[in-house]
């Protein structure tokens, strides 16, 4: 029988049982999750901006409704995740404060601009597509509230990916200008989407512990490979080209091989010097500040 709190925690992890908010857990486990879940929540919320940038220019009522519903889902994901993080003993106000002061991060992919309508297709297809691969794994993460939030979120994500792919397919098959816009969007979003999985785990400080605690169950590289394999095929189906001259199928491994990614750019962008970092945070601060009088009036 386990006697110390550490024993109880370790045994639960070993037996693949979910850790619940009232269970004993090591402080580092709690901190790791708090950081990861709040970062995930912020990504959902900041991600509303690049897509929101096109709501008012959506080219049909149907497209506008689909995009509105999609962005609304992302806000909802933010809510589930803020709630999951709150079970670890941090308030939403504190998390927002950490976001706005740069102490907490969000997915670096949202620091790239959504320039044309095809970007709305590329974001849904590639960015949500990459997020799904990661989130499917997280449905089995060891922290109960996080895993349950992921189950709800994954149900909605496949619709997101499909609507994005549908936009891309339609544009790729449209006028020459539309086809060009679609290819251009793919060219710009391909690498940022692949980098969403993060650098190789060998380089990642947090990864080792995350595996031990079963927060994470597959490596960044393995998840990235899964995404590449399914996406390359989807690209060919709609007549677009993967923007990588070194792309080739390895018949022995059954996987696609791709060029190395530019991790210097990744680190530069994540550390603040990307096309939209300042804009995204400024936007968040501005409207949070403008809403202060409302929150004060209703104490909410």
């Amino acid at each position, binding site marked *: 029988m386990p006697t110390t709190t550490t024993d109880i925690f370790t045994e639960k992890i070993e037996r693949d049982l979910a850790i619940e908010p009232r269970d004993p857990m090591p402080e580092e486990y709690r901190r790791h999750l708090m950081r990861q879940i709040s970062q995930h929540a912020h990504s959902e919320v900041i991600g*509303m*901006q690049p897509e929101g940038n096109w709501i008012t*220019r959506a080219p049909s009522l149907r497209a506008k409704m689909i995009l509105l519903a999609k*962005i609304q889902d992302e806000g909802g994901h933010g809510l589930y995740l803020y709630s999951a993080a709150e079970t670890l003993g941090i308030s939403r106000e504190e998390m927002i404060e950490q976001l706005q002061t740069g102490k907490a991060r969000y997915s670096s992919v949202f620091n790239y601009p959504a320039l044309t309508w095809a970007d709305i297709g590329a974001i849904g297809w590639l960015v949500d597509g990459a997020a799904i691969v990661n989130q499917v794994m997280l449905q089995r993460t060891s922290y109960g509230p996080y895993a349950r939030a992921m189950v709800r979120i994954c149900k909605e994500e496949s619709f997101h990916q499909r609507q994005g792919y549908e936009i891309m397919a339609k544009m790729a098959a*449209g006028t020459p*200008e539309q086809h060009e816009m679609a290819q251009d969007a793919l060219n710009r979003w391909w690498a940022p989407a692949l980098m969403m999985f993060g650098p190789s785990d060998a380089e990642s400080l947090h990864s080792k512990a995350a595996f031990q605690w079963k927060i994470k169950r597959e490596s960044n590289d393995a998840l990235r490979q899964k995404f590449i394999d399914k996406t390359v095929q989807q690209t060919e189906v709609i007549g677009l080209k993967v923007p990588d001259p070194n792309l080739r199928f390895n018949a022995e491994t059954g996987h696609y091989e791709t060029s190395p990614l530019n991790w210097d750019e990744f680190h530069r962008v994540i550390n603040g010097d990307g096309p939209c970092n300042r804009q995204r945070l400024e936007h968040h601060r501005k409207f949070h500040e403008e809403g*202060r009088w409302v929150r*004060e*009036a209703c104490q909410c």
Partner: protein
Amino acid sequence: MTQTNALYHYCLRLGDDAVVLGHRLAEMCSRAPFLEEDLALANIALDYTGRAQLYFEYAAELEGKGRTGDDLVYRRAEREFYSHLLCEQPNTDFAYVIVRQFLFSAFDRFLLDDLCAGKDARLAEIAAKTLKETRYHLAHASDWMVRLGRGTAESNARMQHALDALWPYTGELFEMDDVDLQLLEQGIAADLHTIRSLWQTEVRQTLQRANLKQPPDGYMQTGSRKGIHSEHLGHILAEMQYLVRAYPEASW
């Protein structure tokens, strides 16, 4: 004017209100005071955009020129839009968003009630479908009117300011022209005189609860029945119609 033509215009007006107000609400995405309210506003925007689709599809059929509902939204000029001036007023602050919604939904609720009982089956069907969501929009906006009207000194002042600024756009909601009169005779259009007194009672009661002063009925803005708008509409359309106009051959 033939009855079909009158009905076509009537549907355009209803659709234009929905598409323009829906657009303003959609602009609020990622700009609300907190996340839950962001989602609530997106929901209302979705409701309006959805009903715009229903009205424009019907209008396009009535017109019978082979245009689609989307053609009517994305390829029509400023001077052919008939949305009420109230709907296009900008999201100056959250108080404007709420007051605009309250004043309009209070009107919309009685309008749809009336259209539900109208003799045009298709309009009655759309009205019946959307009445429930409109009741929710009104409840949502009324709740905010009271919370903010009775909140802090600042929230009360901001609400009063928005109410004073938007009030001159309410007179237009009850204007009736030939289109209305012709369809009213057929039992299709709503009687805006009756609706006006219902609206006045609804508004008066909520403003009292909200501790807000009802502005006097002075000068009232007008023009939208003839397609004359504030300067704001042109900008809304420039944005909304941009892709369709820039790539007229493309379909999305």
